[in-house]
């Protein structure tokens, strides 16, 4: 037993000393590496800043001529810069990346065995906004690793090619889909040209797909789809989809949405839907909605009454007058007080 203890003490001493030495060695190595990287990146970073300052008109040859190790050290900075640039400077820097073969390498890495490499490549192609990469990125939407699919979706959003819309929608219809909010945001980034695809997808059998398309249509301001969205608000079998339809109608803000939203306020509807419909009516801001919203101030469901009161506040003078007339109602008092604070701040809401 004692021998075992002695051996354990010897082993422990050795490992403790090794670990302590390892800590110091890691720090020394990192500092050395950091200094070397900083030295290498200094020149390219200056050239990059000069290039950007010239709006990408001069200096591209110098950037392309930078030796590989120095460019590698400066590349994270250059990629970060890409995201901040617009117009000529952005196009100029993209062209530098293309001439240096970054896009070609990234396209090759999209088929790497390493998921980290695939995801990094997708990120780079998205940063470069390279349209030629769209088919390959769409292929990644069925990657077996969720993190790769997520990066591919984001990259497609940044590229903004509406041709990718139906592939993104299709990637929602699987057992392990991409996150709904990310899909909605990406579909919005594809722009108004994606509206037709999104509108057609409102008939998709998957509730999640319909909800995502509704969110995207609302944010895109797709007023041509109001009738279809109103039909979903009325008829869809899934509550989440109907709530998404109410939200979308609110964002679209057309008067033709008032009637379907008012119908959704009926007491027989679920409270979550009624609260969403009340909020949407406030978003539209039409005085025509005041009577139906006022009737909800005494509703037994807290969130319905709360949203109705704040919807009346957002409608403006007509809504505020209705709230004032219901002086004893807690939700009305709350909304009026907030309106007062906002008015004092902005001095925009008439007394």
């Amino acid at each position: 037993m004692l021998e075992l203890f002695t051996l354990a003490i010897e082993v422990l001493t050795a490992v403790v000393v090794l670990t302590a030495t390892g800590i110091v060695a890691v720090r020394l190595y990192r500092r050395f590496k950091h200094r070397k990287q900083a030295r290498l990146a200094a020149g390219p970073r200056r050239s990059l800043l000069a290039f950007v300052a010239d709006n990408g008109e001069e200096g591209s040859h110098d950037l392309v001529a930078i030796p590989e190790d120095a460019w590698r050290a400066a590349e994270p900075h250059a990629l970060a810069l890409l995201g901040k640039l617009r117009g000529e400077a952005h196009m100029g820097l993209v062209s530098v990346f293309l001439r240096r073969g970054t896009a070609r390498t990234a396209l090759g890495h999209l088929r790497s065995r390493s998921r980290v490499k695939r995801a990094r490549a997708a990120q780079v192609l998205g940063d470069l906004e390279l349209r030629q990469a769209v088919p390959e990125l769409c292929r990644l939407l069925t990657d077996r690793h969720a993190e790769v699919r997520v990066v591919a979706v984001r990259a497609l959003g940044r590229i903004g090619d509406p041709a990718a819309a139906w592939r993104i929608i299709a990637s929602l219809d699987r057992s392990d889909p991409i996150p709904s909010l990310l899909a909605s945001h990406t579909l919005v980034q594809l722009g108004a040209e994606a509206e037709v695809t999104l509108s057609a997808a409102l008939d998709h059998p998957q509730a999640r797909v319909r909800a995502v398309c509704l969110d995207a249509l609302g944010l895109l301001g797709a007023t041509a789809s109001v009738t279809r969205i109103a039909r979903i608000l009325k008829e869809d079998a899934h509550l989440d989809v109907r709530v998404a339809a109410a939200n979308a109608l609110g964002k679209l803000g057309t008067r033709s949405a008032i009637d379907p939203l008012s119908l959704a306020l009926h007491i027989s509807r679920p409270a979550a839907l009624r609260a969403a419909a009340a909020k949407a009516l406030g978003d539209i801001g039409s005085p025509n909605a005041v009577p139906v919203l006022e009737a909800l101030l005494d509703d037994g469901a807290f969130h319905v009454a709360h949203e109705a009161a704040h919807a009346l506040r957002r409608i403006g003078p007509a809504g505020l007058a209705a709230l004032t007339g219901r002086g004893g109602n807690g939700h009305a008092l709350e909304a009026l007080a907030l309106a007062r604070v906002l008015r004092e701040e902005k001095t925009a809401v008439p007394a």
Partner: protein
Amino acid sequence: MIEEFIRDALRWTDVSIFAYFVALNSSYLVLIVLAGLEFYRHLRRIPFAGADDMFRSPLTLPVSVIVPAYNEGPGIVAAVQAMTALRYPRYEVVVVDDGSSDDTFEQLRARFDLVEVPRVVPADVAYTSEVLSVHVARANPETLTVVRKTNGGKADALNVGINLARHPLICMVDADSVLDPDALLSVAKPFGDDPLRVAACGGVVRIANGCKVIGGRVVDVRMPKQWLVRIQVVEYLRAFLMGRTGWSRLGGLVVISGAFGVFRRDLVVRVGGMDEDTIGEDAELVVRLHHHLRETKEDYRVIFVAEPVSWSEAPSSLAVLGRQRRRWHRGIAEILSKHRRMILNPRYGRIGLVALPYYVVFELLAPFIELSALVLLPLGLWVDAVNLEFAWRFVLVAYGYGLLVSLAALFIEEVSFHRYPRWGDLARGMTAAILENFGYRQILAVWQVKGAFGAWHGRKAVWGTMDRTGFGTPDEPESDLVGAGSVPRVP
């Protein structure tokens, strides 16, 4: 005959205690290795993590940051200023003044030009105190809300905050915490990446003592001046950063610090909010979520992110540290007692079969075993059950292994986040890892045993007060002093 029996019993007890120490430190080492793997995974993914996309997206889930405050007058303004300047697309801050007897509210009213507004407080979760008034910032009424209520304790204050929270995610933050600018973005990100499954996400809490804080931001990370706090820095690294990351990787995280954690509001409401009868209400909520979600057979995840962080002030006196550790251990004892049905119950998966049994054996019982070793080893020597040769080797191996575990945590920290850039701080960290074995661990065990007995004997839980010294560097008066005041108390 009896003497011989006692000698044998003592000998075997001492050997068993030794085996326990080996098992305990080995388990820590496994968790640290798992944390190391997780950090490696995390760091490789930073280039494509998409934090900027999340910041720019209009669909990012909004968050209600709930800040319970009790007598936080000297530091509350800086803390709230920092929280209202976080990098996140859409969030509100709800400060709940839990009946402070100092000028906490007056400070806020003066700085943010608060105006009183009537507010209907829903009763989504129960609370026992009385809401006295609700105020909003005149310049930003939809971003900052301050609630005044009668004193009811931290859990009660959080419940009021949960009721008033308007957003689908709630983030609970201590009033004396200083968050990194991207902290909220990082902790809320898993909810966007895996919205159907992520139920809660904890952020790491590091010690702010000694750090330079300007404008509610930690701008220069330094080791504290007192050895008592330096030892806690190493302890936080080992137990909180590494331990919780390891548990998160194992899918068995049962503690999310009340100082910094994000939860889905609907789930918190569904399980009834914070438990006002448990002193460790933050961990209890997580265990209750596990309890509920396992029973309803939902596919869910409770995870931990290691960076960026929330900075918190650690006790710098033995008296305050003692109160804190008694409270923490009492919390563990209460939670394990309350949820004992889950322990070793296959229905609760790895929480019931691995995490909670581990907490019983290696967290709840650890101070008892440590203290019994301190008594039984000398006793064994005295009655000749063990000889001196065995005894000193026993002590050296047990504490040497503990030192190795702490150094391993420092090594992983150095490889991954290396937050302490100065060579002097590195040396101080390594020295603290050695020093914690001489007195610190032993006195900690005494406090922890007292805390556990307090829970089992149903003594009234007392939070006590914490005299904060602030985070600012003493020789740099321009630094903000965040976090003076007292911790809330449970009535």
